[in-house]
């Protein structure tokens, strides 16, 4: 196995003259969790479809698990597990039948599939639901089944398009825990997300996208230190313009997003003092995160 799982080199794609993927280059090393982070419309799903060979690029080279894509996408996909953005489980089938049918798509015989189903059910914490119809499962259970299904061919690489979108926090944490277990087993994961928290918790490295362009790449903490490097105060309420005038001398940088002021300053105590007289303000002090990086790089908050 090569040490590179996915390689994009100068990849372009446009629809009706509008660039959806723009001179994109990135490399995912084997065994790492790599995140594509960006708002809706940043091109994340198109990139995922390109990895799977479903969208041919206009130009550039894509290599997945050592195979040229899309020319040899079928061979590449044999070693890939996919968690799509929208559940495409068989609703009328049971959990077990879903795994069986999917295993057959990979050319596995009944014996091979039967041998891996128990461990997949255990991994997805669905042992007690093996014979339940998918329609009876909760959203979190369905997502875990999609994850189990993606593992049926024992893939080297997992490609996940927004794996936890639409899940409640409890279900989301369970998925994150399962993904960390997969990373511990040496699997490579590429995931797209617009959840900064998800990217920070899971990704070894990530690529921040805006309108199909890479605007930053690196380790989450390194990006945060490099781009922000100080604590943040979020200021809600009052008259934003007046508050900004008060704190400007003490701030390293100020961003106004909607009605919220994001104040980046080495000494937030000074900022707090300036605002002491103002009425109706709510202040939240916190360490910087990827949300701030995104705001810094694009001048806007990530829109979901």
């Amino acid at each position, binding site marked *: 196995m090569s040490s590179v799982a996915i390689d994009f080199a100068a990849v372009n794609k446009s629809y009706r003259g509008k660039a959806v993927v723009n001179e994109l280059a990135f490399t995912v090393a084997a065994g790492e969790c790599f995140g594509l982070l960006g708002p809706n419309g940043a091109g994340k799903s198109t990139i995922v479809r390109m990895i*799977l*060979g*479903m*969208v*041919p*690029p*206009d*130009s550039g080279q894509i290599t997945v698990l050592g195979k040229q894509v*899309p*020319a*040899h*996408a*079928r*061979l590449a*996909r*044999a070693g*890939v597990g*996919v968690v*799509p953005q*929208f559940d*495409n*489980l*068989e609703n*009328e*089938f049971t959990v077990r*039948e879903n795994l069986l*049918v*999917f295993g*057959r*798509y*990979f*050319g596995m015989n009944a014996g091979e599939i039967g041998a891996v189903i128990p461990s997949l059910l255990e991994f997805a914490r669905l042992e007690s639901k093996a014979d339940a119809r998918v329609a009876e499962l909760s959203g979190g259970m369905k997502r875990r089944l999609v994850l189990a299904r993606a593992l049926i*061919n024992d893939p080297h690489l997992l490609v996940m398009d927004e794996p936890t979108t639409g899940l409640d926090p409890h279900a989301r944490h369970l998925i994150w825990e399962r993904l960390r277990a997969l990373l511990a087993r040496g699997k490579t994961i590429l995931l797209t997300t617009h959840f900064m928290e998800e990217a920070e918790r899971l990704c070894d490295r990530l690529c921040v996208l805006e309108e199909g362009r890479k605007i930053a790449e690196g380790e989450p903490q390194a990006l945060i230190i490099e781009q922000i490097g100080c604590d943040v105060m979020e200021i809600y309420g009052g008259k934003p313009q007046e508050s900004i005038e008060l704190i400007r001398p003490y701030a390293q940088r100020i961003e106004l997003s909607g009605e919220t002021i994001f104040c980046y300053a080495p000494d937030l105590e000074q900022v707090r003092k300036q605002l002491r007289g103002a009425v109706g303000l709510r202040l939240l002090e916190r360490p910087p995160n990827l949300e701030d990086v995104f705001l810094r790089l694009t001048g806007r908050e990530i829109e979901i």
Partner: protein
Amino acid sequence: MMRMTYGAAMPANASNWVAVWRRNYLAWRKVALASLLGNLADPMTNLLGLGFGLGLIVGRVNGTSYIDFLVGGMVATSAMTSASFETIYATFARMHTQRTWEAMLCTQLTLGDILLGEVAWAASKAVLAGTGITIVAAGLGYAAWPSMLYALPAIALTGFVFASLAMVIVSLAPSYDYFVFYQTLVLTPMVFLCGAVFPINQLPAAFQFVAGLLPLEHSIELIRPAMLGRPIGSVGMHIGALCIYAVVPFLLSVALLLRRLMR
């Protein structure tokens, strides 16, 4: 412009399609009884209603009773309808709303594998419908044993033909609303033009010529004599025509769906 090559989208090997067929079989098994009744009720009603009712007025046709004449036409028509409807409704749903193909395309299956599995499945449903009517008709004494067994491969081929043709419609239709045109402007006229319910030698010469170009005509020319226990003429020509109607639209639908789904 780097294009998806048609070669990479064609069936990858001789067995991949079976997984798709088996997926559909598993889904069908859960609703088999209702599906069987639905598939058989319509053609049986037509056969008995027209056969007895119209048969009284018509008398004998081509040297046989009208209902005996009608059996071959109804078997071919039901194979056509069954394969067509399975494809334009159920297959379209699997491509579109149910996202079944989307899941399949994430595996080592190619688009061609999926289409071949779908077409084979629709042909299987045609065989089910066609043989169902054949068995009932034989039970009632309207089909000749054992020559009606020769009809089975022709029914299967008819299923492949109309599944492939419907796949082209599926690959072009933006939504379900367009399928009704295929049904009313193509399938229904074909039933009358191709001699399913009356002999085509009653039609003007121009219409007979057109009929000779249509796939259902070739199906009926193979199935009807088998049902009546008569020798089948020009077997090679009819089978050849049907094979062209099965293969060409299939290849066309792979190309069209490649452009629709993978761009």
